[in-house]
């Protein structure tokens, strides 16, 4: 079931327009960085809206405190890829869901060490395609280079990849079948690109629901009840 994990809805008032577009293009849901009443909401027409948070900050201690606070409130927790130290911390922390390539510049290509850590913890590399829609020529080639190198590194390390729209307006959202073919521009074959659009987002949401419901310490270990 295709879900767009990164719709940059600017305000609650605009949410309906994104829901309408999601219905038109065959999305079953999307994630937004807005204060909704609950981490997962279902609209009357069956579209699922998930809450998302992008951890911001250059200080590792600040980020660690943030994630402890927000993990149970958000379905999707993402860390933008900027700094190697922060990326490596995020890749090793199971409370994180996504490492997002939000600024496709050559300084932010994912490193092999980060990808290997993320592969072990199940964290996915997120590629929002919005920057490609608003650029062309040499600028777009440079972005494609960053995306292609990052996807190659991630795939080689067996790190999962997820494609999202990063849309700030409904018309910038893309149908899952369109995103599937955009993924092939990043060097993925049809099968992997299809997984990045259709199945990996679903898996992330399911794992995230589990993380929110339980206090998972590591695979197979959960806090069931705390002592008094």
């Amino acid at each position, binding site marked *: 079931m295709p879900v767009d994990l990164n719709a940059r809805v600017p305000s609650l008032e605009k949410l309906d327009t994104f829901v309408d577009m999601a219905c038109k293009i065959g999305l079953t849901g999307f994630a937004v960085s807005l204060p909704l009443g609950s981490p997962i909401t279902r609209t009357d027409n069956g579209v699922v809206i998930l809450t998302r948070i992008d951890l911001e900050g250059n200080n590792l201690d600040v980020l660690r405190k943030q994630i402890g606070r927000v993990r149970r409130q958000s379905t999707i927790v993402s860390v933008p890829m900027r700094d190697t130290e922060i990326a490596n911390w995020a890749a090793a922390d199971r409370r994180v869901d996504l490492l997002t390539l939000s600024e496709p510049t050559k300084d932010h290509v994912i490193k092999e060490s980060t990808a290997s850590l993320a592969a072990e913890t199940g964290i996915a590399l997120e590629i929002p395609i919005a920057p490609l829609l608003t650029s062309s020529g040499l600028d777009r080639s440079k972005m494609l280079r960053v995306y292609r190198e990052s996807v190659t590194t991630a795939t080689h390390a067996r790190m999962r990849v997820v494609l999202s729209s990063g849309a700030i307006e409904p018309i910038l959202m893309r149908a899952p*079948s369109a995103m599937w073919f955009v993924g092939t521009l990043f060097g993925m074959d049809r099968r992997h690109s299809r997984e990045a659009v259709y199945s990996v987002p679903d898996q992330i949401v399911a794992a995230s629901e589990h993380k929110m419901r339980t206090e998972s310490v590591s695979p197979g270990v959960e806090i069931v009840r705390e002592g008094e």
Partner: protein
Amino acid sequence: MLFHLHRTGPSIDARHLSNAIWKSFLSLFGETSVADSRLFINDYDEENGLGVLQCNAESVDKVLASAALLSSIDGTQVSFWPERTSGTLKGLKR
């Protein structure tokens, strides 16, 4: 392939849509890929945005990626949705 062109703004005619897809394809994949593609719009309803795009089998992925990256045509913002592909027109219409 059957496609649906969503838009905000005035409708776009088949010629402008075709040119836009050609330009996007050219920009991404170059002149020889465009030359080999046999790309053309077979059928297109401007009002509801439904149409049929044809190309050779080897070019399908490139054509659809090029069309998916279109964000606006002549000032009208668009979102291209490839609904279904088929090897024959008859299969598409079924």
